[in-house]
């Protein structure tokens, strides 16, 4: 009698968008590649969790990045990685701030993500890639351009992260090659740092918060994309093993 059924590492099954609702009910021992729309992610996460969290890779067809708040849901449901399809048309001014927020939370929670920039030419106009090198770079394809190549070459996990203290946050920033540690303990600044995790129009902020956001933008901790601000460092929730040099 044999207790183990041993096979070469098995590629997960491929499921089309319209299939996953019916077929995920089966026990996917080897997991699945699932295609879903961004709006379906909470429902997909619920379904996956109900059957024990099979090893699942999700490809999200979306014109706008998924809600950053869905990252925890997907991980709890056993999702191993998320691939975001390339948006096929110009998705508007919120696309980049939302994508940065999603990437930031994915890195913070440890969810591997691959993604592609919009097709439109000049996608990186006005984008300071040197501030984003702590986030997963876009998948480099033909004609990706210098910005994506730069991002990819300079990327390393852990280059810009923050930790919560007692009424202060510590930002550890190594994006420019030198390590610096900044303690933010002014309540207005910490308030803005936290609030801008959600992309926010600067014009909608009060005078003090806008001034605080300006300081954080100056420090490179918040990105201003045509008047929409978003916090860049990710919260250090998961440490590598060993962590002796982190």
């Amino acid at each position, binding site marked *: 009698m044999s207790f183990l059924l041993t096979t070469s590492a098995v590629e997960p099954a491929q499921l089309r968008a319209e299939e996953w609702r019916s077929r995920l009910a089966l026990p996917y021992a080897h997991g699945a590649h699932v295609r879903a729309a961004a709006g379906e992610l909470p429902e997909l996460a619920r379904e996956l969790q109900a059957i024990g969290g099979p090893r699942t890779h999700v490809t999200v067809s979306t014109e706008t990045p998924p809600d950053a708040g869905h990252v925890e849901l997907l991980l709890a449901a056993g999702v191993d990685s998320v691939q975001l399809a390339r948006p096929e048309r110009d998705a508007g001014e919120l696309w980049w701030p939302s994508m940065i927020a999603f990437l930031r939370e994915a890195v913070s929670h440890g969810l591997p993500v691959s993604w592609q920039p919009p097709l439109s030419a000049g996608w990186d106009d006005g984008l300071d890639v040197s501030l984003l090198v702590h986030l997963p770079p876009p998948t480099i394809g033909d004609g990706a351009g210098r910005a994506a190549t730069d991002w990819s070459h300079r990327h390393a996990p852990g280059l810009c992260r923050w930790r919560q203290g007692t009424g202060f946050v510590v930002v550890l920033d190594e994006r420019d090659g030198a390590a610096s540690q900044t*303690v933010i303990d002014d309540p207005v600044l910490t308030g803005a740092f936290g609030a801008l995790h959600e992309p926010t129009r600067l014009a909608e902020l009060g005078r003090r918060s806008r001034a605080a956001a300006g300081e954080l933008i100056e420090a490179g901790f918040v990105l201003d994309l045509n008047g929409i601000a978003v916090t860049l460092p990710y919260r250090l929730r998961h440490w590598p093993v060993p*962590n002796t040099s*982190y």
Partner: protein
Amino acid sequence: MHLVLAVTPWHLLHHAHAAAELLAGVLDPPHRATVHYANLTFAELLRDADRDDPGRYHRLAESGYLSGIGDWVFTRALYGQGDHAVEDARGACASAGFDWEQTLAAHRIAERWADLAAADILALQPDAVGLSTTFAQSVAALALARRLKRQRPDLPVVFGGSNCDGPMGAALQRSFPAEIDFVVRGEGEQPLRQLVNALDTADPADRERQLGTIAGLCRWRAGTQVVQPEGTALPEGEELRGGTQDAYFDAVASSEAADWVRPGLVLETSRGCWWGQRKHCTFCGLSDRTIRFRAKPARTASEELLGAVDRHQVLDVMTTDNILDLAYLDSLLPELAAAGLDLHLFYEIKANLTAEQLATLRAAGVLTVQPGIENLHSAPLKLMDKGSTGAMNVALLRELQGNGMTTMWNYLYGFPGESAAHYLPVIAQLPNLVHLLPPAGAYRHIIERFNPYFERPELGFARRAPMPWYRWVYPHVADGDLDDLAYLFASQPAGIDEVTASALREAVAAWQDHYHCSSLTHRLVGDTLTVYDRRHGRDPVDHRICDPAAVAAYRELARPHSAERLTARQRKAGHDIDEPWARAFLAELHRAGLTYADGDTHVALSLAHDPRLRRLPAGGTTLAIRSAEQLPAYAGSHR
């Protein structure tokens, strides 16, 4: 009186000197104490000599103790006759892997350091100076003391610290009478307070009377050494208090070292060892005088920790405890978890903590632990009186990895009574453990003063002598005094021979090389358990277990079981299996490399699948520029 407590090299740069900081707070008013971090001055001088290598101080501080190189660096500053014992030191450097030219440069720089440090201390206008000697601080302290006494012969110089415990402090004072006026032995709060009060007493008779009441004090009376018996009274946990650490953070902030040192907090939440009280691990160098376990009340520990975090705005905390107080699992640790901070705590723990207890530690921010694993075979562990088994240790490594916690450990060998039969089965299985964090290395254990191997020669080390380097570091010390001064001892090798030891070291090196690219995880989906084997050196395979009894048995093997015990557990859970079934099951898992076998006990090796777990190469990475300064590689022994 103004007491200056000077911290000499090789105290690590990235945290305060816990003992000096707390002792600075115990003096009776109007006496006061200043903690002076002279170790930072030496780090600056080394950095000036080679600006591309800020890690040199750290490397020597971490690894220069056992070889004697750390102490040797300061011998030129102490003896003042040019380069000292060059050929011996060159050989020791070669054996220990230090760059000779760099180390010789440090040896020469040390003279300038001693001059500068003495001037800095005297500028503080002290009425007395205290110097702590732990690990490789003794010669640096002596070099400093020599200069202080030359320039201020009236200045009382007090030695203390671990290198002064028992007969060591008295021998050090006998050997360096011009440098050491007093030696405080044992835990210092009470004797130091008494000593400062006595030194401030004008009436010679009264002063003499007071000095005579200080337990453990070594002093001079009319040119004759007086060695007072060490006391038995120790502060209770409720009496323990920590220092502010202000002096350290101020010193770093005004030092060039601020450019490359990321300061952390240090905290003492307990003293002694509750396991050692029951069974003193045979290789552990904790003194029986201070081994009684005493923990601070959780409320005090919490207030001190969170208060220090708030005061210094630092989230990395190293505790000096020899072992975690298990009561903290229900008090201090949940409170820290509830605070919602991103702490990084280091604790030494006992290796038999459960998965739930480890999760409690992780939730509180305990990210790095030293569990005293030491070995993966039960027989040597029994010889050590560790109170754990090989399979328990492997289960612990697995759980720590699964919780994202870093484990500091060494593989120790060389115990009287062990044999190759206790190592060869382990060596054969180490490739199966490649997905778990490897030890820093495999080392023959060393005899330390106070450990049972030292105290009880009948355990197997009948003939012993101070490590050879003591002789060339202290050439003028008489043989008898050298025996009393030494903490580390050499003896005839015991246990396994070099052939087996070499095979173990090679297997550990391969483990270190391949850890970062290996994983072994499992997932239960529906009724099927799948094990994903992506360990280095194997074809990537998936193992599926579909039989409900087999799935349950595999999950039961998260804890170590023999076939007999596994059968009993499974039958109790309602699975209709017998012992032949369990034996066949264990044999098949073992053939697939999915279990670790320690005698007839087996434990499963796979971790629950979690895409968030990230491995870095064992032994450090280049992610953080200031990596070398952040956390020490902890040695296998307690001190």
